[in-house]
Every structure is written in C-alpha cells, then in structure tokens.
C-alpha cells in the first residue's frame, strides 16, 4: 500500500479530520448543528463538550490515554467539538485545543501499522503540511528542506535539533522517523490552529448556550490560574543572573544598551511589576527622562502603540547581544529568563 492508494487516503481522512478543510469535513457527515439538539444526541453533545473542556483545563495531558482508534461516537462528536471552540472566539482556547489535537494525532500515528507509518508521515508532511520532503533510506527515512525544518525545529529545546548538529546536504536535512514525527507534531499544531481560525465566527444556537458558558468558565479558571502564577512577585535573589546583572549596572550608573534596558523592563513587566515601580528603578539613570521612560515602559507593557505586550527576549537573543551570564550555565537549560527558577530552598543554582 502506498500513500497514493485511494482507500488508504480515505481511511486516513476519517481518522484525521484536520486533513481536510474543516467546513467540508463537518459537512461531509451530513450533520448540521441543529441535529445535535435532537433528543438522544445528549451523549454526543456531552462527549464533544467534555473533549473541549479537557483540552482547556488539562492541556496536552488531556490527550493521554487516547491513542487507540477513535470510536464511532468520537468521530461523530468531533465536528461539534470544533464548532464549540469556534463559538468561544478566544485565541487562547484555539491554541490550546490545537496543541492537544496535534498531540493526539501524533499518538495516533504511532499506533498505525508499522509498515505504513513511513508512508503516512510522508503523506501528511507533503500533502497536508505542504513540506518539501523526500523519502530516503534508513536510518534517515526522510529528508526535508531546511526552510521547512527550521520553521518547526526552532521551538525544540534539545541540542540535537539545532541545525548545526544536523547533517545538511544540498538544502535538505535527513531525519529519522521519530524526529520526523516530532517535526510533524509541531507543524500540525500550527496547521490545526490555522484551520480553526479559518472557520471564522459561528453563532451559538440556544441549545448550546449553557455548554458554551460552561466552557467559558473553564477557560477563565485556567487563565486566572496562569496569571496568578505570573503575578506572584519573584524576589530579587530568584531573578536570573542576566537580569540581576542588568539591574546592578543600572543602579551603579554604568552604561546599559538600549536593548539591555528593553530586556530588563520587559522582564519586570512580565513578572508583574507596575510601571511606577519600574520608573523608580530607571530614575537612577543619569539621562533619565520620566516622560520618555514612561512612554517606553507603557509601550512594552502593551498599554500604548499596537497594544501587544512584549515578552522578555529569549535567552538566545540575550546571548547574541552579549548580556547572557556564563552562557547560561547557571540557569539549567532554560530558553527564556522568565523560566528561570531558583531551586526551592537552595542557595545558588549550580
């Protein structure tokens, strides 16, 4: 069986609804939203709602325990799950659902008959994700173009995924099967999110309103917990070394580059400092101009300009600008200063 076998593709489509256009998919079952209002459909509705709820509350953990072929019920309730995510009209919810789905798919890929995995991955990469990919000989069964590789590999932490640690041959990166699966999972996440967004708005029919309300509450709970975590102020001794150094230099009146100032301010905003507190810190500078500083801080905080709050630059960027301390050896492999955590009870992180 090869990827071009029509029966094979059809089966694949059934198991992986995102491989088709979402609206088409929902349509293909001949199901309209109203059908779910019929008596006897409660079980399917509950299935659909709880799938979304699980994803919102538990994230990728929600996909654990799945992996076997989806049941009839799951397949039938699926379009409704998707519609429910669209009704929430919330980008956080969309992203979270996409992440969980991508995880679920990659588990399904692992369950496919081993003889077919290579072809399935190839099909999904090429036909669905539109990657420039070629089949090759084991152990490197796949070769993907570096531009496609980089698009998804930059999110991966492990050094072995860094381009400099890969073989590069005339533009293509050879990958082993599990590595290809990792790349596909990352790509699917983006792809599903995009697909979900492309559905656009779906008005909530009355019979679903209580369910959407329930999902909104789950979403709020989740978000509230996350911001609480971020708000709990981090004491100075638990700041990453680079931020401590920037603060020190600022207080000592030493020169701090524009990027250095931006980085520290973005860090402080992200750990929950208020503009006034940050201003006080910057007031130590010889060339301090409150008006300009306030504008810049509010800009970083997303209170001005485009309204997007800047996140703290990544460790990598900080390294490029020469502000990283000891090449991150003190920080335990984090990618962003915000992830820095001092060992509980410990003195220094070694």
């Amino acid at each position, binding site marked *: 069986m090869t990827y071009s076998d029509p029966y094979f593709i059809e089966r694949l489509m059934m198991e992986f609804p995102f491989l088709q256009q979402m609206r088409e998919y929902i349509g293909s079952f001949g199901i309209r939203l109203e059908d779910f209002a019929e008596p006897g459909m409660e079980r399917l509705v509950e299935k659909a709602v709880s799938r979304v709820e699980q994803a919102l509350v538990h994230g990728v953990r929600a996909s654990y325990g799945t992996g076997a072929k989806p049941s009839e019920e799951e397949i039938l309730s699926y379009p409704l799950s998707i519609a429910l995510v669209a009704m929430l009209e919330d980008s956080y919810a969309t992203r979270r659902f996409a992440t969980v789905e991508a995880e679920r798919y990659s588990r399904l890929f692992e369950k496919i008959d081993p003889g077919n995995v290579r072809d399935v991955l190839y099909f999904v990469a090429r036909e669905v994700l539109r990657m420039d990919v070629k089949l090759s000989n084991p152990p490197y069964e796949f070769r993907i173009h570096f531009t496609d590789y980089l*698009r998804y590999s*930059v999110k991966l932490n492990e050094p072995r995924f860094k381009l400099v*640690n890969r073989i*590069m041959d*005339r533009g293509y990166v050879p990958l082993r099967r599990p590595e290809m699966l990792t790349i596909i999972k990352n790509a699917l996440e983006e792809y599903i999110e995009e697909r979900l967004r492309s559905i656009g708005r779906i008005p909530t029919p009355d019979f679903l309103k209580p369910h959407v309300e329930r999902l909104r509450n789950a979403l709020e709970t989740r978000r509230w917990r996350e911001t609480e975590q971020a708000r709990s102020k981090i004491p100075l001794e638990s700041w990453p070394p680079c931020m401590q150094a920037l603060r020190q230099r600022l207080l000592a009146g030493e020169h701090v580059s524009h990027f250095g100032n931006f980085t520290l301010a973005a860090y402080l905003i992200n750990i929950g400092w208020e503009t006034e507190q940050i201003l006080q810190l910057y007031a130590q500078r010889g060339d301090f101009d409150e008006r300009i500083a306030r504008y810049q801080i509010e800009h970083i905080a997303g209170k001005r300009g485009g309204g997007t709050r800047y996140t703290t630059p990544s460790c990598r960027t900080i390294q490029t600008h020469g502000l990283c301390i000891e090449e991150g050896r003190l920080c335990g492999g984090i990618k962003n200063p915000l992830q820095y955590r001092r060992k509980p009870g410990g003195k220094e992180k070694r």
Partner: protein
Amino acid sequence: MNNDKKRSLEFVRGLFRNYYEAMGNKIYQPSKFENREFGYMPFHQKIMIRHLRFRNLDELLKVLKREAPMHVYRSAAIYHLPTAPMEEKGWLGAELIFDIDADHLELPCKKEHDFNYCNSCFEILKPDEEICMNCNSGEITEVEWVCGKCITAARDELLKLLSFLEGDFGLNPDNMTITFSGNRGYHVAVHEDKILRLNREARQEIAEYITASHLDIKAYGLSENLRPLHDLPDYIDPGWKGRIAKSTYQILARINSGDEETINKLKETLPEENIQNLGELLYEWSEKPQWSLLNLKTHSRGGKRINQLSVLVSLALQISRSQIDTVVTTDIHRLLRLANTLNGKTGLLAGVIKYDSIEDIEPFEQFLVLPKTPEVKVKVVNAPEFQLGGRRYGPYSREVVKLPANIAAYLICKETAILAS
C-alpha cells in the same frame, strides 16, 4: 566641523555627484523595488534619512544626483508600506543577508595599521589611547585602516560562507548578490523565494550553523566513547560531518609539514610530544579518518585532563567556520548598503562581484571608480603605506602632498586628510 574639513567633504561630495550623474544607471536594482525601504546618510550631517520609498530606479537616481549622499542603503526586507513606522510597515519577507567584515576577524595587522589622532594637535596615538598625551585633549579621531591582508582574510571567509550556502544549504548562486562593502569586507544577499519568509529564530539557526556555534561534537559521534567507524565523520559526508573530517585531516597535514601557526596554536593546550605524534598520523588518515588514533587522554599545559580528540576537532571547527556578523543575519529589518553605490568611508564603489570571479577580484583596483583628475594638494595627518588602483602611496605623516582626486578622496573619507588651502 571646521571649514577646511567642510570644504574637503564638499570636494568629495562633488566627485560623488559627478559619478552618479555619469554612472547612475549601473546602480543595483533589488527585486520588488517599490516594496523596499531606502535610506541615506548625507555628507555634513550624521543623521540617517530613512523610511523612503521609490517606485523605480529613476526616482532614486534623482535623489542621489541631488543629494550626492555619503552612504546609500536599502532594506533587505520587503514591506507592504515601506515608508510607515517600523511596526506598521507590514513585513512581507526579507533576503537572507551576510556581512563579513575584516574588523571582526581579529587580524594581527589591525594593530599595525589602525591609529588614533588628536583633533587639536594632530599627535598620532595608539588605537586604545583616548586622551592626547601631548595636549591632553580628549577630542580624538579613530582611523581604521584596511590592508591587503585584511581584504584577503575577508575574502577567505567569504569563500567559506559561499561553500556553506551552496553545498550545505543548496542555494543557487544565481540567486545571490555578492558585493564588496566598499571598505573592508563583503556582503552576500540571498533572494531565493524559499528563504524570504524565514523568521528571526530560523535565521539565528542558520547563522549558528555557519559559525559552528553550539556545535556539539557528540552529535557527530565524537565523544570519548566513539561511535562505530561507519557512523563517524568521513571525507565524503555532507555538511559539518564531512567538514570536520576534512579540516581535521588538514590540521594533521599542517602539523606534518611543520606549519608554525598550527603547531603554536596546538601548543597552547597539547604537550609537544603529542603534537609530534599527530603529524605522523597523516599517512593512516589518507584513505579514511582514523578517529580512534586521536582519541587520547592527556594533560594540558596547565595540568588539566583533556582529550586530544576534542582539542583537534575544536581547532577544525575554528578553521572551517565562516566568521559572519551574526547580528546582521538575524536582523529581519536590516538596512544594507545598496550595491554599486559609493561608500563614504573610502570613496570606493560597493560593487557587485560575479560569483565565478571572486578569487580574481582586487577590490582596491577594480572599485576605485572616482576619477584621477584633478590632482589636489592635501594635508595628510597620517597614513601607512597603501596600495590603490595598482599604485603605492605613502607612508605619510603630517605632510602636504599632491595626489590624484580619487586618492585624496580616499584619505579625506578616512578622516586622515583635508584639502590644503
């Protein structure tokens, strides 16, 4: 700025204007011209005028003829609205750009030819001196000189870069614009469709690949517990894998032939008898790399336990990486010098170089495009001996000399000469 300096710059500006009036149509025309941001630096004013947009080359030329600017720049990026503030430009993609600058190569000749001088008494100071010992003035001009060695070293880095781009990244040289920077380095801009949308992080990965930073030699099987031979770097392997094998062979060959630079470098870490033995391994390595023969624990000069293999491989990485400026490559909004325009730091043309003529190029001859006439008298503060347009000049030290216009312009641009009254 004093009047003499102003007059001197105005003289150079006149030469620039004449050049653009006569040769303007040779200016490089980046693709998607109307989606680019342009900028220029005028003479007499250290402020960049940017966020400009031109619909075509003629519009740009009009400005160049009128302003005769010191430097002309264009964005590597293409924008929906090139004239808008940065956040509102609407980034549509950017060429993948590389900058090689001899100044970043830490060459020994830099110390020999760079100098500072005092603006009030013209005393020559060493590059690190910031206060004049003669008159205590703190007004200093820093002069960075460029010699043949600088340019050759930069060209070697360029050739390595191109081998990465072509061999490893499979990019087509037809889609690259290679230029002399007009001063002491080279630029490469890749405009292949596939790479335009690469984000900052992806470009960082590419920059790290080319500079071998964060390269983990264990990923290539080279740890103390070597992988089986068939899985270790071999000469025929693609990418860094093959490069590590070839450069390590090269190091062994250099030791074997008694190359002092290599031997001295290794002496910093390895004991002398190890180095001697390494030279003799060359024969064993001729067919296929024999990694196990290098895998020896030893003690460094400082008494630390080290593995000979990792010392050699890290030297191999040093020779085969290309020392690009990673900040430039990762900046997706960067302005870069517009090719085939004049560089106001030298008066030389930042000229396009054909891919297959890189090894023959003599930038200090070929890109000396300003006219020789008129000859003018200049007061030269200081200049080491230098070669331009195939002729030798200098050394000069606080003297008045009569020079062809283009040579005088070079020294004025370098801020080490002014027109004599």
